[in-house]
């Protein structure tokens, strides 16, 4: 199972790193919560996120906006993921924690530590028995975002 969850995380990160954003919502269940926040906000109990989606449709809309509506300079992410820590299973949902690091590379080649932090996930098998995210809270260590956050973390 550890390997399966690690593979889920890796595949999800790979979809983002290779620019195949359309595949990204597919790693989530229809009814899900995806939020990007920071450790300070998380600890203060502030509910808002930089990105906040309470269903997969909102994730799809985010991707659509990135493709069709929003302007941002060409950039790539590279996720480096830590080993997942599998937590308790509560009514079918398995809690998982994984460290992440994202390096952002801009069009001109400039590389930057864009984000580091923890994924606080709740995963469940879907109808076809594949692990999917029912919840993913992206808790960034830093409350500072360079320029903008376009591609999801």
């Amino acid at each position, binding site marked *: 199972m550890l390997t399966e969850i690690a593979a889920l995380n890796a595949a999800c990160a790979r979809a983002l790193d290779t620019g195949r954003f359309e595949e990204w919502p597919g790693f989530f269940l229809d009814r899900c919560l995806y939020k990007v926040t920071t450790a300070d906000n998380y600890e203060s109990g502030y509910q808002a*996120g930089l990105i906040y989606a309470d269903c997969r449709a909102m994730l799809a*809309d985010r991707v659509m906006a990135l493709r069709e509506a929003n302007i941002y300079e060409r950039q790539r992410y590279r996720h480096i993921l830590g080993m997942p820590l599998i937590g308790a299973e509560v009514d079918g949902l398995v809690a998982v924690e994984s460290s992440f690091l994202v390096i952002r590379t801009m069009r001109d080649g400039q590389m930057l530590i864009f984000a580091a932090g923890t994924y606080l996930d709740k995963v469940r098998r879907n109808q076809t028995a594949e692990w999917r995210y029912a919840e993913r809270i992206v808790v960034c260590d830093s409350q500072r975002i360079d*320029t903008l956050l376009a591609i999801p973390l």
Partner: protein
Amino acid sequence: MDQAVRHLSAGAWPEGLTRVPYWVYQDPEVARDEQTRIFEGPAWSYLCLEIDIPEPGDYRTTTIGAMPVVVARAENGEVVAFENRCAHRGALICLEDGGRVKDFQCIYHAWRYDLRGNLASVAFRRGVNGMGGMPDDFDIAAHGPRKLRVAVLCGLVFGTLSTEVPDIETYVGPEVMVRLRRVLHKKVEIIGRFTQQLPCNWKLYMENVRDTYHASLLHTFFTTFRITRLSHGGGVMVSDNGVAHASTTLAAAKAPDESYSGMRADNQALKLQDPSFMNAVAEFDDNINLQILSVFPGFVLQQIHNALAVRQIVPRGVDSMDLHWTYLGFADDPPELRAMRLKQSNLAGPAGFVSMEDGAVGGFVQRGIATASNQAAIVEMGGSTAEGAETRATEASVRGFWKAWRAQMGL
């Protein structure tokens, strides 16, 4: 380029308000003058929210330009502020974003300050075993960090080192005060805090905030989903001194609108799979969808549907700045309204559907003008004055910014 590439010639300024020479965004001398003449000068700077420091002993740290500042609630409940610099050898007195204390103690040599920033005691002032210590004539009362004049307005805390600048309401002006009170009409609650670092001069961001012309052209999302279009009702108001502005957009007419046809920004192909998050909850008894308000030099208040936020602009260098976002709700938000605010937090902020571009466009200008410091921007949309208008197809409010800036810079 990693450095200035021009001999800059601050001082020369074109006639009128319709041209802005590019050296204002590049010259380190200008940045230094701004610190003394604006941030430490006759201007009111936003410091924090009153709810950040509800009880006596609560404090919060911030900066005015580059000056570190402590804001605290004194024993008598008064809000006070002082420079975050120890009178002894200059260390920061407070190292945290905020907290609650009985008094302040510098970590370096344990000099103590009361909640108002008055030097209260000097460690080993009398020495030890009759040796060392401070001279007897050392006058504790004569030393301490610089004190600020503070004003609390609709739950916002402003501060200034200036004794000349008029009171905050006069500074903002009656017309914009109405707009400010419209939004901050009851107790707010913080729902998120983020910092966005922008690769541009701080003035480029403030111009962007005041630039009612760009929104529907730069932000496709705005236009396509008809959140704000120049063809919608509303307008812009600017205080006489140029210091404050507010722009509004009325709810969209249902009628078809061809004014953007053919423009990149008008992409009728776009459809949301979950349009629910656009169903804003009506919470202000008017039909204003969107109101952006600013107070010179660095304060912004945002209402985009139910997405409320305060933004604080802090320069970091000629080509870098921090934008501190505080996402707000009201303390008495009913659940469905609060839920809508969370969903609509997708609209603004560093990842906002309608604000993401604002994080980058200042950098595009900074890079575009790299070798154009002796050229000038054209700020002529809507004429040459800084007066409000019933349209947003104008740069009047941007001109108002420069009116206020030049007055303080003496340029």
